[in-house]
């Protein structure tokens, strides 16, 4: 009892201008939606991927970011020797007590920005599985050397291998670049913790990160550390520590995306409503014939609704295609928790594109409903008379 779908598909092609403008309107809404969500996801990915679920990060109790934290050598030492700290192939603990400071670097496109400088232990590359040196070599202990994160290279002056950066009254030679799977670490400069300490804050670490022997035992590790009277620390799952930092901005971007796209959608939906009403009006004789032939009004409604969905689908796909080129484009903002600049890329994922199409289909559904109902309710006789 169904009206052939080919009827709707061909009808849509019969009015190319109308169809295209409506679809394009929806495409733009989908584009804005996908773009803003891609921005939000990119930011979150950069921050969130920074931490691992297998590691614990400890800072001074009450501190929720590394910048304002301070841990003594003894504290670091005590934690490192605890039984739940995993050991590497050589039997030594996989722990990295770190110095965390901010340095001001000159941007290649003018102005300057604050960048995180992290003084790490030589074990850092093992503790953090996703970080690896991609160019140059590792740091020589005791030398005034630094490694530069991949997303800093090319954006700031003096970051090529062999070049020198000056901060904290010392010259530091860049001996290598490292990548960290697109995460926040790539926006950092790494040096040796023992070298950074005297240069900056004195005999104090800002944090200590270590791998757990049993990642599922985090709760007990946390309790042990926080209840120990010798240790004035707060312990976090490394992953969650960084995830928290991204929460606010991610939320703002998501809300903004929904808000903006939502209002644009109102406009697009109204446009679709107009288009469909016009179509129903122009095809009144055809609708009368279908009803005369015995097709049920419900079939007519479904038929026109399908037509609206076809247009919406075109819009959704078009919007996704328009958004694709954004994928991978880098931008930056300030990570307010660390007051440092973090670079991240737009992240257009297949599931986001799918959501875009679904969003479009929803718009088509809402926009097409009333006109479709009008078509179904059309009194046959009235129209036959018009003819």
């Amino acid at each position, binding site marked *: 009892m169904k009206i052939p779908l080919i009827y709707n598909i061909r009808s849509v092609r019969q009015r190319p201008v109308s169809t295209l403008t409506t679809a394009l309107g929806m495409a733009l809404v989908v584009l804005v939606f996908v773009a803003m969500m891609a921005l939000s996801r990119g930011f979150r990915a950069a921050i969130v991927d920074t931490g691992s679920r297998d590691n614990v990060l400890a800072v001074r109790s009450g501190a929720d970011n590394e910048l304002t934290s301070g841990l003594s050598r003894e504290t670091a030492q005590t934690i490192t020797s605890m039984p739940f700290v995993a050991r590497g192939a050589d039997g030594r603990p996989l722990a990295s007590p770190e110095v965390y400071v901010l340095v001001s670097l000159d941007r290649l496109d003018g102005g300057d920005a604050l960048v995180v400088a992290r003084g790490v232990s030589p074990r850092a590359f093992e503790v953090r599985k996703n970080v690896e040196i991609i160019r140059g070599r590792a740091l020589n202990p005791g030398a005034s050397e630094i490694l530069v994160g991949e997303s800093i290279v090319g954006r700031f002056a003096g970051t090529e291998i062999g070049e020198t950066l000056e901060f904290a009254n010392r010259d530091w030679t860049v001996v290598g670049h490292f990548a960290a799977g697109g995460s926040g670490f790539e926006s950092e400069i790494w040096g040796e913790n023992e070298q950074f300490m005297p240069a900056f804050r004195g005999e104090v670490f800002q944090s200590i990160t270590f791998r757990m022997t049993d990642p599922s035992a985090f709760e007990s590790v946390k309790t042990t550390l926080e209840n120990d009277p010798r240790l004035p620390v707060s312990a976090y799952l490394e992953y969650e520590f960084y995830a928290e930092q991204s929460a606010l901005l991610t939320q703002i971007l998501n809300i903004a995306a929904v808000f903006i796209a939502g209002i644009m959608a109102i406009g697009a939906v109204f446009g679709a409503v107009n288009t469909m009403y016009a179509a129903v009006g122009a095809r009144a004789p*055809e609708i009368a014939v279908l009803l005369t032939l*015995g097709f049920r009004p419900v079939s007519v409604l479904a038929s026109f609704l399908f037509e609206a969905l076809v247009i919406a689908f075109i819009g959704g796909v078009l919007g996704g295609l328009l958004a694709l080129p954004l994928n991978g484009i880098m931008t930056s903002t300030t990570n307010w928790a660390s007051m440092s600049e973090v670079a991240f890329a737009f992240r257009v994922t297949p599931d986001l594109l799918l959501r875009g199409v679904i969003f479009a289909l929803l718009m088509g559904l809402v926009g097409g409903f009333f006109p479709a109902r009008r078509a179904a309710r059309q009194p046959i006789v009235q129209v036959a008379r018009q003819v």
Partner: protein
Amino acid sequence: MALLQVRNLSKVYQRDSQAIPVFEDIDLDIDTGEFLVLMGPSGSGKTTLLNLIAGLDEPTTGTITVGGEEVTAMSRRQLAAWRSNHVGFIFQLYNLLPVLTAYQNVELPLLLTHLSKKERRQHVMTALDVVGVSDRADHFPRQLSGGQEQRVAIGRAIVSDPTLILADEPTGDLDAKSADEILTLMQRLNREFEKTILLVTHDQRAAERGEAIMHLDKGVLTR
């Protein structure tokens, strides 16, 4: 018993507060295999009567029975189903769907049945053959002449082998030659295929093709 029985039929239109009667208290019988022509000036209600018989509209009073079934007592949904099986309607302005080919236009009524694609094809090709446009099966309405379009429309009207064929000024928009061909076709449908036809027109030449003529004027039906 007559195939079509109309008893005490009245139709009164309400426009704002005014009652506009079209006709009142009409009786009509059409036997199976009859070719009846209904004539009358414009506005006399011929089309209205046709619409009522086809179940496209509701009478103010009266009953219409077709093949023993009381059309006037059916719900809108029942009417839709009934129409698809029992009525073939031919309009003045063909009303083919411009986005479908001739074949697909004729096939439309069959989509409401349970016939398989192969069976539908058989019926459609037969219908196209009868009306003489099988060589144009894959053409779109805009590629056909007026006469050919009306033939396709007739094909659509007969493809599901309806009990009753209702034609509303089928030659009204055609040139003399095409009109002639269409009327010949309708006569053939009646004599060769024994179709019952009620044709409404104000064209005298068309009237002469039927078996019997009735007049509807000022709400009164006369032989």
